[in-house]
């Protein structure tokens, strides 16, 4: 490739490099100096080092590191991607902060390093507009996540989840790649911009349709939209809490962002319409179907679950459905809404998993195990209340503002109210979702604790992470302007 | 006329008394009783003050007070009185005082009883003076509640059923009345009786109804008839007019006789008052149209209860039905007057006589019936609860004073000349004969029946052989005699000098006669 300046590359990827280097450093550190140290110390050191790296990267991004574009859209760094990267880093920090209390493995260095690698992959994923780079980073991300999922070697569930995740993931990667190669075949390019030109020229090409379907299926697996969600419940349930949180939050943020970019930038010409009475073929109707299916299946199946993690998994499928609505609307406004939604969703999900992580020692799995949590750990259960209510979309928490904005964006598109059916379905399903969230909260606050249950102690770092997350959820809900204006400005500047 | 709001003061006085009784009642029953008597006396005094200040010759309302209340609802605070109201105020305050006196030594009846009685008195006063429908309706309903509890709590063994019956009947009537007036308000925009009366006379009301109420292409005559029916039902239940009298027998019989004194003496007048104040002036045309049915109902109200009373074996029930019969004369008088309004506008003097008679009869029945039930109270207390017609006999010998005085009351009730019952009934018949001779003739049967059963009472209870067990019955004590004396005296006074009452009514009657022309 011509004209690629390595210096430029280094400048643009400085934050990713920091994170990745920190990952290697951690590996070395843990394998050499800390080999003999006590497990607790190893965990703490790894946590501190990894967090420092993330914070450094965060500061670098915030202080306005370089922006620019590499040829063929290989790397597109603008304020929007930086914003998403910052969110990814923040989520990674939250996940890392709970590591302090974890005891499920002795491979401390590897665990933390993999979290950092996954984060690096996601950071790269969001800052590219090139199909090849997208595929590579997705694979990089997926590999890290497969391992993270199977990290608890004592648990057969963990191994089963990892295998399932790997099999489905591998298959979806194949489909995705196939789809991408078809796109290349149509357009002769792997960058999104030339593809967009080619698609505009011949939107009705059957090959294009096939390509779109395949790309969609590939991403569908990543974001766990129904009917490609089968791995999700097992992974959420079987994986170590930190890994599950990563799968549930930051990988969602990155995948949704990438998905939006691919379709919005690359395939706009073949969008079609899912508006009621104004149907026309394209990827929008496909996504609308995915969205409807995800909302329906995710929320309805969640009712039947007894395990809290599986409830979260199915609710995540439902949420994927809500977020796909933003994709169906495919406007700038809806991108702003999507970014806001996925941020706040990830925050609340990380928070909810954080509570589960804090309860790891209690072997909490089924909803009934939460009985009397309000008495045993008042702080913890208050945080859980905030996270779950935010997920349910109760104002004035962040989840509500996100939902409101997504729906507004969906209804604001031309063809007055063509998407009303989707919004109404989403609203109905949010009622359903409220039911199962409330079931968990009911156990925590209404039911009496089991006689033998004692108070629960939570490590300080976890506590800090949880309270910060909860505070963010509340603040972003009460004052959504703080984040929304920033996203909106970034979106505007990114798509001038 | 004095600027002091005498009527408001009069209405509030027993209410304040009721609360005072409740508060002082903690000090014991006698304190409560004393307070009650003081307030009842004060009410009577205030009524007499009004009586003195009243100018009988003037038509229209006197002592009027008018304040805005809730203009949006057509609700004003508008009170005033004419001769009819004044008469009713007098009956009410006298009867309530008598009733309190009658329960002087009934230990079952504590502070709560007296305060309810005083609340009831407020309801009565309010009903007889309020001139705005809503305002009036407030008191109309409020008088029902204390009455209900008086029956419900202090009544006899069947009190629950009796009280419920009483309440349900009255409530149904009230609702239809309310709905009818709501419709009238919608059409006319007014709840004021005086205004409505004027509108009815000038025909504005009919045109307003025709204009503003359209239900399914009914013509306005039908609509007005329905409205009249609703209002009529309300008053007919309260009076009661015959097919709607089912509640009365058990209510009067199950209530303590002291309570029945108020029910029959004061409360039953509310219905007749409604006929005179509301139905006759506001719906003259409808009453005229329905005259045949109404006359038959009036006759039935006179004759059937008289027959029923004859068949009773319980003294209380007997007097209860006789009470319906007596009020039947009032209804007959009113209906007869209304029945000759349309085409023939003559008979002014007959109508005046009939209406004067009706009002006199209301007064006299109030006093007589209350006195009679007072005697029953005394008898029941002495006999230990027995009040069957056949339980007694020859009481004349055991308790001569009692028998004598009660005899006077019975004759008064019968309408013997010289006693209070006579002038009223006489004037009614005098008025009704020219207006509707057949109804008057039929009503005479009722008069006969009344005579028959009252004489039966006299004979069965007071004469004949004295039974063993009643030999020791104590005659009236001095205190009881003193308390009863004014009532009996009043029977003679009014009987011999009816102008005392009818003099007050002249203006009112003439106005009413003038009003019931359309």
């Amino acid at each position, binding site marked *: 490739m011509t004209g690629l300046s390595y210096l430029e590359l280094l400048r643009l990827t400085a934050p990713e490099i920091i994170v990745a280097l920190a990952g290697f450093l951690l590996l070395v550190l843990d394998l050499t100096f800390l080999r003999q140290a006590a497990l607790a110390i190893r965990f703490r050191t790894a946590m501190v080092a990894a967090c420092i790296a993330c914070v450094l990267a965060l500061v670098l991004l915030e202080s306005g590191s370089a922006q620019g574009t590499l040829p063929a859209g290989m790397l597109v760094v603008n304020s929007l991607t930086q914003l998403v990267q910052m969110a990814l880093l923040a989520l990674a920090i939250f996940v890392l902060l709970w590591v302090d209390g974890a005891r499920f493995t002795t491979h401390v260095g590897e665990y933390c390093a993999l979290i950092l690698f996954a984060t690096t992959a996601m950071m790269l994923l969001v800052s590219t507009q090139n199909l090849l780079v997208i595929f590579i980073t997705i694979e990089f991300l997926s590999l890290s996540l497969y391992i993270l999922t199977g990290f608890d070697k004592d648990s057969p569930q963990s191994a089963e989840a990892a295998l399932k995740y790997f099999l489905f993931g591998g298959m979806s990667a194949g489909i995705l790649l196939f789809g991408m190669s078809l796109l290349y075949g149509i357009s002769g390019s792997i960058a999104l911009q030339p593809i967009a030109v080619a698609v505009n020229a011949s939107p009705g090409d059957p090959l294009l349709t096939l390509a779109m379907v395949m790309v969609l299926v590939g991403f569908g697996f990543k974001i766990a939209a129904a009917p490609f969600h089968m791995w999700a419940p097992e992974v959420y349930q079987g994986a170590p809490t930190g890994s599950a949180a990563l799968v549930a939050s930051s990988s969602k943020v990155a995948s949704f962002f990438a998905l939006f970019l691919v379709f919005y930038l690359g395939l706009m010409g073949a969008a079609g319409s899912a508006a009621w009475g104004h149907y026309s073929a394209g990827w929008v109707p496909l996504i609308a179907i995915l969205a409807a299916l995800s909302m329906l299946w995710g929320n309805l199946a969640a009712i039947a679950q007894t395990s809290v993690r599986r409830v979260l998994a199915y609710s995540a499928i439902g949420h994927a459905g809500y977020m796909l609505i933003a994709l169906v609307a495919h406007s700038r406004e809806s991108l702003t809404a999507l970014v806001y939604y996925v941020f706040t969703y990830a925050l609340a999900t990380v928070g909810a998993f954080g509570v589960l992580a804090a309860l790891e020692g209690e072997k909490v799995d089924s909803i009934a195990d939460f009985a009397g949590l309000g008495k045993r750990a008042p702080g913890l259960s208050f945080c859980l209340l905030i996270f779950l209510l935010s997920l349910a979309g109760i*104002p*004035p928490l962040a989840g509500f503002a996100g939902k409101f904005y997504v729906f507004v964006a969906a*209804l604001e598109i031309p063809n007055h109210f063509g998407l009303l059916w989707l919004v109404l379905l989403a609203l109905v399903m949010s009622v359903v979702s409220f039911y199962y969230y*409330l079931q968990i909260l009911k156990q925590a606050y209404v039911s009496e604790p089991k006689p033998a249950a004692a108070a629960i102690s939570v490590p300080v770092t976890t506590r800090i992470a949880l309270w910060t997350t909860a505070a963010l959820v509340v603040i972003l809900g009460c004052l*959504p302007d703080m984040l929304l204006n920033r996203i*909106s400005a970034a979106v505007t500047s990114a798509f001038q | 006329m004095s600027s002091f709001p005498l009527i408001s003061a009069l209405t509030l006085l027993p209410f304040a008394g009721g609360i005072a009784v409740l508060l002082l009642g903690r000090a014991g029953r006698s304190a409560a009783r004393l307070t009650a008597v003081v307030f009842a006396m004060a009410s009577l005094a205030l009524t007499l003050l009004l009586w003195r200040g009243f100018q009988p010759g003037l038509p229209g309302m006197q002592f009027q007070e008018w304040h805005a*209340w809730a203009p949006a609802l057509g609700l004003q605070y508008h009170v005033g009185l004419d001769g009819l109201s004044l008469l009713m105020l007098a009956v009410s305050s006298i009867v309530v005082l008598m009733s309190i006196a009658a329960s002087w030594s009934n230990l079952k009846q504590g502070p709560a009883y007296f305060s309810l009685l005083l609340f009831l008195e407020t309801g009565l006063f309010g009903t007889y003076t309020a001139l705005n429908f809503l305002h009036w309706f407030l008191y109309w309903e409020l008088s029902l509640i204390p009455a209900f509890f008086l029956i419900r709590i202090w009544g006899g063994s069947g009190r629950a059923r009796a009280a419920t019956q009483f309440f349900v009947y009255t409530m149904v009537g009230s*609702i239809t009345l309310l709905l009818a007036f709501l419709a009238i308000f919608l059409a006319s925009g007014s709840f004021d009786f005086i205004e409505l009366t004027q509108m009815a006379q000038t025909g504005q009301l009919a045109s307003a109804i025709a204009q503003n109420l359209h*239900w399914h292409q009914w013509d306005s005559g039908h609509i007005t008839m329905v409205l009249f029916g609703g209002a009529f039902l309300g008053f007919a239940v309260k009076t009661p007019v015959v097919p709607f009298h089912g509640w009365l027998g058990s209510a009067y019989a199950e209530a303590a006789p002291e309570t029945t004194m108020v029910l029959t003496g004061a409360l039953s007048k509310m219905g007749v008052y409604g006929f005179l104040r509301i139905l006759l002036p506001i719906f003259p045309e409808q009453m005229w149209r329905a005259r045949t049915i109404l006359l038959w109902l009036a006759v039935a109200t006179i004759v059937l209860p008289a027959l029923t009373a004859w068949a009773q074996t319980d003294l209380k029930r007997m007097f209860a039905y006789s009470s319906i019969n007596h009020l039947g004369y009032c209804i007959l008088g009113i209906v007869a007057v209304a029945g000759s309004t349309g085409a023939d506008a003559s008979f002014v003097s007959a109508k005046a006589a009939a209406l004067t008679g009706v009002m006199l009869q209301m007064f006299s029945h109030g006093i007589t019936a209350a006195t009679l039930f007072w005697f029953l109270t005394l008898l029941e207390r002495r006999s230990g609860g027995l009040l069957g017609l056949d339980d007694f006999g020859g009481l004349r010998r055991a308790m001569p004073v009692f028998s004598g005085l009660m005899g006077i009351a019975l004759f008064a009730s019968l309408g013997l000349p010289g006693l209070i019952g006579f002038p009223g009934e006489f004037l009614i018949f005098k008025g009704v004969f020219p207006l509707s001779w057949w109804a008057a003739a039929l009503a005479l049967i009722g008069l006969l029946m009344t005579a028959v059963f009252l004489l039966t009472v006299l004979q069965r209870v007071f004469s004949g052989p004295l039974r063993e067990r009643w030999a020791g019955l104590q005659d009236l004590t001095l205190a009881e005699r003193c308390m009863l004396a004014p009532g009996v005296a009043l029977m003679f006074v009014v009987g011999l000098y009816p102008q005392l009452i009818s003099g007050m009514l002249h203006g009112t009657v003439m106005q009413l006669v003038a009003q019931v022309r359309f």
Partner: protein
Amino acid sequence: MLAWTIYLSFLGAVAVTLTPAKSPAVARVTALLTALAGLGIAIVAIMHADQSGQVITIVRTPWISHLGIEYHLAADGISLILVLLTGIAAVAGILFSWNVERRVKDFFALYLVLIGAVYGVFLSFDLFLLFVFYEIVMIPKYFLIAIWGSTGREYAAMKLVLYSFAGSALVLAGIIAAYCVAGQRSVSFEVLARFPFPVHFQMWAFPMVFVGFAVLAGMWPFHTWAPTGHAAAPTAASMLLAGVVMKLGAYGCLRVAMMLFPRGLDPWGFRVLGFGSWQQVFAVLALIGIIYGATIALVQKDLKFVVGYSSVSHMGFVLLGLMTLNQIGLSGAVYQMFSHGIIAGLLFAVVGRMVYDRTHTRDLHELSRIPLGRLIPFAAVTFVLASMASIGLPGFSGFVAELQVLIGSWRSFPWMACIAGVGILIGIAFTWRALQATFLGEADTAASPQQAMPPITLPERLGACLLLASTIVLGLYPRFLMDLILPSLNSPLFEQLRRGAWR
């Protein structure tokens, strides 16, 4: 200053959680003082309210500028009287839950959060803000019932919350749609009330939003949460639930659905099953609610269910009043909101606190065997007065309210007024039956052991007196509220409603 009703309640909730766990009395007193302060503010605000029907803005500041959403608190006469109602109900509720012993701090904290959010709904003049407060209400409501409730509390709480959440989902859809259609980047009432929405849009937005709110107002057939919820809730919660929360729904129907989409009430131009407009449909539903609620109340065995169904019946009058679309009917509906709030509170206080907490049964048959009238005469008198108020005897606020609704419906649908009259009769019957069984029952004193009952406490007396005084004052002096309601109904906000279907 009115905004402090909201802030104070939330601050009070925080303060209650910070009180020492050892002494529940401190928590109670803190809660009571907070509620009293709210009531005081409401009273002062009403005293100073000018009667021109103007909307008085309290706070107005940009909130989510990106979406044009404002933090806008304001009040007109209707808001003011409902704020007053909330104040009264809050104080009374706390007085009647003085005997809560379990998790006292949590109870009062949740209670104050609920109160604060209710104040918020009544004072919001931005649709988004209103919705935020409307949803906040739900959470404490759920926990109050689920934790401190009685029979079937978890089921009832869940049912209640799901119903209201489903209703609010419809409302939310309506809000978003209105926002997008108006395209003014604002959901302020001032902007939207003036915006002429296309008629075909109003035709579907109106019923959607109306039904959404009416769920909470207990409209038949969406009323089923009400009786179970009321019956299961602890006394204070059912007082608030019937007293205030159901009013939120009715308030939303008027303030949002009818004010913003008045043309939705216009005739359709065709007839379906004899109905020619949404006005007729909802009027009939309200009417069914009146009759149905009363009839079911007539056959209930559980005293609280009787009162619960009576609420459905009485709220039917509110909805019927709204659907009359004339001034007197609407003012009657608002008046009924207030009146029913007070009366239902009173009934639940007697049934839940005075009777149930002492006898531990609500079964009418069992209660009739206890000589309650003699054991707790104060409760008997209170219940009698409350029943009288409930059946709409003149002199109590219920009469003024139902009277106006009846007049209004005479004007719009005469036959409905007659049926509503029948509803009142059935209402009398079931109130009657409850009264018979509880306080007038022929208790066989010999058969039932005379268990000594704790006497009626001072807080109970104070609470009962507060509520009784309110209903009687408003029954005897309706102008107190009417002078606030009528100018508000004539204000520019309701301009479109007046111009449209108003008769």
